């Protein structure tokens, strides 16, 4: 068994003067305190890769900086799926007795530490170096390709996709730490600058500074336990050129395996935390996971289904689209918010019942997937 015993999250946006290590340390200290632990209690460290300050031994760079001497430490890189992949690994590490308290941490000063062009260019390198990158695609273009096909096959429109940007912004407006607090409309999304059609600026997550961390422990450290009930991965390809057909993507494989590993069903889920690098990502994943029927996710947004007071509250902090995206920490914020919801600490954003949550992360171009069920136990 394993439990998420503490969480920490900085605000996302500009942190002028903060380095990646500063942001990681800030989040880590919050998570350890939240777990009711001392930093010396941490005997395992997993950290996400870093694009601003890459290092071949980032976990030990962090451990030395933070002042701990773990018995297990290394970095992990699975693109946007890294946060949940680290959580899955931490779960297995504590379950196997390799460590008692694993600190999962990431943070980057991606917004102020490098130019936006540098960020876009660094990320575009997930493309094939010989057969894709010379064509000048960007990450939005890779997802734009997928979006065009998905819209073609399932009759989804640009206005449908815009609903997801509006929903995430509505949620972000209730979180003081979010990067964006100005409400937007579908018309605003439609009128925003074209980036890689059919994706426009407001269909895309921003670049942010920020840090996130949590502690995964063998035993609960508080009265309420947030149990990792089961998780699974699927990896079908790396490059969009080599992606399988839409009906064979990895989210459907990983959720089926996670359901089997946890014994949970979609009908048991009360809160959803789903990767949303672009509006199309969120629309597709919701439908792949079975949280909406094919082509119907946008209608569920319009009906309030995914709102704070709806039947399936989703990314109530605002997601990558509006809370912000600082690399690996971006999707870790989804888990932090889930933990706050499950422990009744989400303040104005608190949902009625978050007793069982489904989390899903995606890396590359729908290449790598991690699905995870968390359950509150008393």
């Amino acid at each position, binding site marked *: 068994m394993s439990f998420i015993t503490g969480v920490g999250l900085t605000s996302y946006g500009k942190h002028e003067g903060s380095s990646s290590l500063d942001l990681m340390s800030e989040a880590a200290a919050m998570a350890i305190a939240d777990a009711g632990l001392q930093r010396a209690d941490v005997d395992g460290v997993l950290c996400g890769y870093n694009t601003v300050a890459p290092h071949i031994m980032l976990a030990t760079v962090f451990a030395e900086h933070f002042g701990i001497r773990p018995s297990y430490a290394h970095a992990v890189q699975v693109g946007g799926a890294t946060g949940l992949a680290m959580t899955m690994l931490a779960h297995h590490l504590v379950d196997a007795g390799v460590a008692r308290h694993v600190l999962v941490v990431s943070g980057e000063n991606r917004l102020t530490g490098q130019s936006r062009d540098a960020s876009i260019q660094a990320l575009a390198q997930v493309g094939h170096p010989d057969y894709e990158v010379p064509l000048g695609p960007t990450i939005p273009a890779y997802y734009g390709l997928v979006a065009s096909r998905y819209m073609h096959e399932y009759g989804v429109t640009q206005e449908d996709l815009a609903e997801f940007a509006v929903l995430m912004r509505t949620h972000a407006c209730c979180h003081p730490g979010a990067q964006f607090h100005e409400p937007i409309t579908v018309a605003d999304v439609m009128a925003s600058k074209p980036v890689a059609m059919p*994706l426009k600026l407001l269909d895309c997550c921003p670049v942010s500074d920020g840090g996130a961390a949590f502690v995964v422990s063998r035993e609960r450290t508080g009265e309420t336990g947030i149990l990792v009930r089961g998780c699974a991965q699927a990896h079908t390809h790396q490059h969009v050129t080599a992606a399988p057909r839409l009906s064979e993507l990895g989210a459907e494989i990983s959720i089926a395996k996670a359901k089997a590993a946890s014994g949970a069903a979609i009908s048991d889920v009360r809160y959803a935390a789903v990767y949303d690098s672009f509006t199309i990502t969120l629309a597709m994943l919701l439908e792949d996971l079975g949280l909406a029927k094919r082509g119907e996710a946008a209608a569920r947004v319009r009906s309030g289904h995914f709102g704070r007071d709806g039947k399936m509250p989703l990314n109530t902090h605002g997601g990558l689209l509006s809370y912000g995206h600082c690399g690996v920490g971006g999707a870790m914020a989804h888990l932090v918010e889930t933990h706050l919801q499950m422990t009744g600490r989400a303040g104005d954003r608190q949902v009625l019942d978050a007793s069982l949550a489904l989390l899903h992360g995606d890396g590359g171009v729908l290449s790598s997937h991690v699905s995870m069920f968390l359950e509150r136990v008393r």
Partner: protein
Amino acid sequence: MSEKVADWTTGTQAIVYQHCVACGSRQYFRRRFCAACGAPDLVQECASGAGTVYATSLVCRAATPETRAHVPYNIVLVDTSEGFRMMAHGDNDLAIGDKVTARFTQFAGRLVPYFERVK
């Protein structure tokens, strides 16, 4: 494994793919073996350039000065008549399902394949 046949990735006007003698699979990303069955016996062949548009994305925001000079440019995935999928450039108004044929063009100092609609 024979020598690499020159193609657009090395500046020659050709689209080359590999054909597995053992299992019949076709692959576009060059390897020393067949990714489907692992066999080392691959034949390199030149594609006809005929295909069908699978997906498109018109890039309006580029990340480098070299590519920015070309915006907007259309990134397309094309299912070739030989049975493999490839990424290329194409006419800005291409739609999914359009029958296309390849030519070559210069982009950011490189030769790249470019698909246009079959009239």
